């Protein structure tokens, strides 16, 4: 008869954290920030078909980094939960706080109970009637939840990006300024996925996924910005082609338990 290995709970959780953190840190980053006319999502995403940012409900948007199949199932679940709550109660009863809590419960339970934790980090953003009422929730792989009202940086090399965004973020930015601020963060030296290239990059339109929750728009406020309208909003340096990408696979396309 085989005896089960004994491993302490402490060790088990530490191992799982390590798996999750490693998976997430390989990915490309996302900046979510509140600005004068709503909430802005800027993701570095070289795929035009596989999205990292999505609409959930009237005033709620979703952004995620990490393993694509996992974040897709979480995104779909969020839409299902929001739609069924809005259908059985009322559209006004679907709140970011409730949904963020549900996500945190589920991801937290998966972290404890499942062999492999979710290798994702998600941000739920809710646009308010005024900028002070914007809410950004960040939910990490272990189910911890943090709320912010200014900006959230998630993904691979977040430290240099966070530092930069902290410097340049100001309440009251318009859309163009907010996009420029997010780009300054994403392009900072050391922010490239993988080991982090030392020099600053230039991210063009094709390397970006941009969306907003538009404060002034009644009903469904989520809107993607792409093509010509996006080009017009980008800083001059970013309107050309993007820098060539170093041959490093992001967390979203690395194999499970992949390379170091």
């Amino acid at each position, binding site marked *: 008869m*085989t005896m089960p290995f004994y491993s302490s709970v402490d060790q088990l959780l530490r191992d799982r954290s390590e798996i999750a953190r490693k998976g997430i840190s390989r990915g490309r980053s996302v900046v979510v920030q509140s600005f004068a006319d709503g909430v802005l999502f800027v993701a570095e995403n070289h795929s035009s078909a596989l999205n990292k940012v999505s609409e959930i409900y009237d005033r709620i948007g979703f952004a995620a980094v990490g393993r694509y199949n996992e974040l897709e199932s979480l995104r779909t679940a969020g839409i299902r939960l929001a739609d*069924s709550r809005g259908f059985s109660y009322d559209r006004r009863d679907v709140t970011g706080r409730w949904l963020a809590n549900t996500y945190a419960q589920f991801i937290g339970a*998966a972290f404890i109970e499942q062999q492999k934790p979710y290798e994702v980090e998600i941000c739920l953003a809710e646009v308010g009637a005024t900028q002070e009422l914007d809410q950004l929730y960040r939910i990490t792989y272990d189910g911890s939840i943090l709320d912010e009202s200014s900006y959230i940086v998630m993904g691979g090399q977040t430290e240099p990006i966070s530092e930069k965004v902290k410097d340049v973020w100001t309440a009251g930015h318009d859309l163009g300024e907010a996009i420029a601020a997010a780009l300054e963060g994403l392009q900072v030296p050391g922010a490239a996925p993988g080991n982090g290239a030392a020099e600053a990059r230039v991210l063009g339109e094709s390397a970006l996924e941009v969306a907003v929750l538009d404060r002034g728009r009644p009903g469904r406020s989520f809107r993607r910005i792409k093509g010509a309208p996006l080009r017009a909003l980008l800083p001059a340096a970013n309107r050309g082609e993007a820098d060539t990408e170093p041959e490093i696979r992001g967390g979203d396309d690395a194999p499970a338990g992949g390379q170091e």
Partner: protein
Amino acid sequence: MRRGTPQIMEFREGIPGPAVGRTSRPELGHHAAFAALGETSFANYVAATQPHLLPSPPQFDAPRGGRAPSPEQLGVPHGTTIVALQFAEGVVIAGDRRATAGNVIAQRDIEKIFITDAYSAVGIAGSAGIAIEMVRLYTVELEHYEKIEGVPMSLDGKANRLAGMVRGNLGAAMQGFVVVPLFAGYDTEEPDPAKAGRIVTYDPTGGRYDEWLGYHAVGSGSVFAKSSLKKLHRTSADLQTTVRTAVEALYDAADDDTATGGPDTVRKIYPVVVSITGADGAVRRSDEELAAVVDSVIAGRAENPGG
């Protein structure tokens, strides 16, 4: 938990794989939302997880030892005339504002035309309660698909989904609670705007019929409305003329059908008219615009009551 033996590896709920370790309890509560991979239908999701929320629940049985009460006995409100007209730039759908329960006017300002997404609208005739709930579910269905897939449902997909919902109501329809929707949509994939406006009708069994002749009407006043449309409507007409023709048809229906309400100039209650065009999508025409149209229709009828 034994580790190291692959056959007992745990799988996350909903992910295909060996069923070992998965519990057999029904997928309820918020866990269900995280399962059901690849399901894009909100109605199917609700049916599987919260069937009590469906417009006509499956257990719609007659009470034991007696006949089920008819809609008349229950005093259930009934919606009446809806018209849809295809024109040069798209399609217009319009409805009167009356709901009846037997000989009584149940509501004089009910709204029976619903914008269901950016390029479609549904008008309802029949049992108002079930119909409104059905359209509410249908609207979420379209939005849900669009959010999950990232692209809107095709026009034919939309028409078929509505057919499925009408069919789901067949049990209730057999007991008299019939719902007959009229679907109007603009096919954004059709390059020719004169052909992009589409009208689809249904029967209570969920049969779906495309109307290619340019107009249709449902409800108790539909016979009179259709006769009116046959004489007045041209598919080459512009938006303004088409809105007016729709109001004329509703006026004719109200003229001869007691259950259809005419425009109420005293209370300022006008028909609900929605236009769906490629340029502007589904737009509810404003009360000011309709007030002007109604005034001119009534002025015309004052001269010649036959229109």
